[in-house]
């Protein structure tokens, strides 16, 4: 009995393939995937940022040397990507917190063909679009500041 349970659990385990399966994409699926990808990307950036700023402890020369490495056109393009992903992650995260609190889910209804989920309604889609739009606006603002120097 125990091995049967284990076998079923393994069959349902899709891992990264299930996570990235494009055949299941809807807006909610896209937001789920984007929230996780941006989160991992931002964690990697944050670890790098903590290491980068630690050069301040080495004095002025160490700080300036680190700036020479990071304050380049590629460094600024990377920062613009950080601005966009952090804005999307924040706004979409707020949408998820509100959703978990039951806000914007709509009322439950009888499941009729073609079985559109009532939870994926206009409010939810608007939330995803607002997150994407604000990310684009933040990236434009960041581009103006960072690339305006070059």
């Amino acid at each position, binding site marked *: 009995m125990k091995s049967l349970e284990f076998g079923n659990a393994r069959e349902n385990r899709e891992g990264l393939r299930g996570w990235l399966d494009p055949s299941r994409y809807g807006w909610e699926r896209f937001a789920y995937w984007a929230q996780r990808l941006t989160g*991992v990307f931002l964690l990697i950036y944050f670890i790098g940022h*903590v290491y980068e*700023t*630690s050069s*301040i402890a080495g004095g*002025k020369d160490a700080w300036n040397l680190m700036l020479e490495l990071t304050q380049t056109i590629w460094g600024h393009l990377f920062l613009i990507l950080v601005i966009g992903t952090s804005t999307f992650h924040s706004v979409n995260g707020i949408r998820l917190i509100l959703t*978990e609190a039951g806000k914007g889910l709509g009322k439950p209804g009888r499941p009729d063909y073609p079985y559109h989920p009532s939870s994926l309604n206009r409010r939810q889609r608007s939330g995803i679009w607002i997150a994407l739009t604000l990310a684009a606006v933040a990236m434009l603002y960041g581009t103006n500041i960072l690339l305006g120097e070059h």
Partner: protein
Amino acid sequence: MKIHYATGLGALFVVAIHILMRLVVPYTSSLEYDHVISNYHNFLYAVALEAILVLVAIHGFNGLRVILLELRQSTLWENGVSVATIIAMIALILYGTRTIIIANGIGL
């Protein structure tokens, strides 16, 4: 998930302060050594930086833990992932705190 949401909202607030502090002066000037050091010497700002460090580290590593637990389930995996992410989180907080303490002047 409550800790994830609480740290996320808290991080959003203190990161906004961090970015605003950078925007009150021209971008290039904001990165000059003397300006950055003067920021670290401001005790309240140093506390805000420590708050960013702690909140983002908890939020980030807990998020990574959640993703890894979604991908695979077993007692060994779940315990291993939880312990590894907590150790990484503590290491990052200690490393970042060291920078804040030294730059603030307490350690000099």
